[in-house]
């Protein structure tokens, strides 16, 4: 039960990763492409990205990464995105042709995927920040873990707000003392 509740929490990352990955497969179904092809492409990219997305949410829930920060998300996907794409390439080729091989010039491939990951991270974070807080708020009624993480969000907002207030007060004091001087 506890495991189920935890899994429930990671839904935002899971769904964003999955949507990004299966876009290709979903569109194929609309235009009536061979179902097998669409399914393979969708699943070999969609499942790894969904699992990695859920992993990011889990890190967030456990307080291992900063709420709403861009740098941790960019670092996470710098490693995660090339891995997911490597799996996608290798598995798709293996399932469709039966041969197991790495992409040609695999080091250059990974470096390129690493750079593109920054763009993916912006989009991922953008969607995650839209979906996650209201989702956890709704879940909070019957899931204590969700309540915890939602309160953490609220607390984070309060702390940042108070820090700003203190800084502002300090600036105010400095300005008025320099005026007196």
């Amino acid at each position, binding site marked *: 039960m506890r495991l189920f509740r935890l899994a429930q929490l990671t839904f935002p990352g899971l769904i*964003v990763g999955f*949507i*990004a*990955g299966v*876009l*290709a*497969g979903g*569109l*194929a179904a*609309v*235009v009536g*492409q061979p179902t097998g*092809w*669409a399914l393979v*492409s969708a699943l070999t*990219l969609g499942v790894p990205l969904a699992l990695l997305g859920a992993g990011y949410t889990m890190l967030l829930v456990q307080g291992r990464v900063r*709420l*709403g920060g*861009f740098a941790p998300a960019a670092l996470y996907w710098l490693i995660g*995105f090339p891995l997911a*794409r490597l799996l996608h390439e290798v598995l798709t080729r293996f399932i469709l042709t039966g041969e197991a091989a790495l992409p040609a010039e695999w080091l*250059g*491939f990974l*470096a*390129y*995927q690493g*750079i*593109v*990951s920054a*763009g*993916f991270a*912006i*989009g*991922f974070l*953008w*969607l995650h*920040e*839209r979906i996650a807080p209201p989702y956890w708020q709704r879940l909070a009624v019957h899931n204590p873990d969700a309540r915890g993480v939602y309160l953490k969000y609220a607390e*984070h*907002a*309060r702390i*940042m*707000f108070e820090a*700003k207030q203190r*800084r*502002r007060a300090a*600036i*105010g004091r400095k*300005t*008025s003392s320099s005026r007196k001087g």
Partner: protein
Amino acid sequence: MADSHNPQVVVAGEEERVWRAGGLEPMPIRPLPEAPPSIHLLGPTVFLVALGVGMGESYMWPRLVLVFGPEIRWLFLIGVTLQAVVMLEMARYAMATGESIFSGAARVFKPLMWFFFVTAILVYIWPGHLSAGASAFEEITGIPWVVTACVALILVGILFSLASVIYDLLENVLAILIGVLVVGTAVIASIVGSWADLASTLGGMFAFGYLPSEMFSSSWFPIVVGSIAFAGPSGMQQMWYTLHLRESGAGMGAHVPKIRGLRSAKEQGEIPSHGYMFDTDDPAEMAKWRGWRKWVTFDAFLLFWGITMLVTISFTVLAQSAARENPNVKGLIEGGDRSAALEAMSDAFASAGGPVLGSLFFGFIALIGLNATLGLFDSFSRGQADMTYNHIPGAKRFRLSHLYAGFLWGVITFGILILLFGPADGPSGILDILAFLSSFAMGAYCVTLLLVNNTMLPKPIRPKWWSNVIIGFGAVFYLGMLFYSLFRFGVVLD
């Protein structure tokens, strides 16, 4: 506020302090709300991104890269950076007063505002902008584009009429659509692109001073300069951004009620006929102001600048790989037949990554079209309703929600009639005039910004000298290039 830098502030008896700007009603002094405590509250920039990331980013710039090489991209860097500074300056007036830039223009000189009112109607009532997205949808589903465009128009109208608070609904819808666009373009670029494509695209952004001689011809000059001018938001889109800032409650916009949909128009709060000003002599208020400036600067540079760059770089990488796959693509793109070029690019992706990838490419073009249409209809109606309500005598008999709905359904009805019976882009005889007005409006808003921000705001919150220099450069650039192209080559910017 101190009289030394603020002679126009008066204390009316014991009652209310006001800020007098121009000939219109004075603005009462009210407290400035706190800036959002954290950067992960996404702001109204989603509208600007939705409007700005259009055909320029997904088609025109990739086309120029294929014709002139990646080095041409330094001009794009200049164009988008200039637009980011314009965005910051538009936000200055809107956040300080809660008024739109149109009201600011009316405070300086009323005919200036009427110029923008008329230009908006002339330029934006033609439904031609729907054709790119709807045609892409036709490629995927086979449904004729005129049918899709008409259905989309009616759905947009119903959606905005039923929503209780239009802004909140639209911000959420657009944010999700743009998020999907960004992760999607990143995934596609990762599948079809290569290290070499990316390196040349990025390197080209810093090839400052590269101006190929072929550029200076009557066929290419208007296209290149037009693409710089229209990099990011073009025409009047930046001016509408001030209305979205107000609606999102940014800065003094918090004191003005939001526009409601037709269904809940009765709950519409009373809209004041003037904005508000905060006490710029109070250090605590000025600290809050700096918080708001930081918030909007983050929006301008990471979200607006970053996402516009990402989408263009992704699409340029796509065009390069398509041209490599199929040499015909290069010829078609250079030739300028947009639909043939997009189809050839889609085919190239289909042969590289399977049929799905070809359809997916069209899916993204359709998505970009949908974003732009949603943003455009809302912005147009919002801008015209704002000017009508505040500046046409007797218009206050109506609620602002009703005026908004009137303009929205007016432009939708006209759009459907034109799609069914007329030329979608406007009568061919006036196409040049419309293109002229669209670029002229950009030069005009730079001049308006300089006048409004430097004469209608209290001194402590006026722009810095370097910001004025950049906006001044924008005015000279947009107007200068427009007239140079007109007199040297006899054509308006494309």
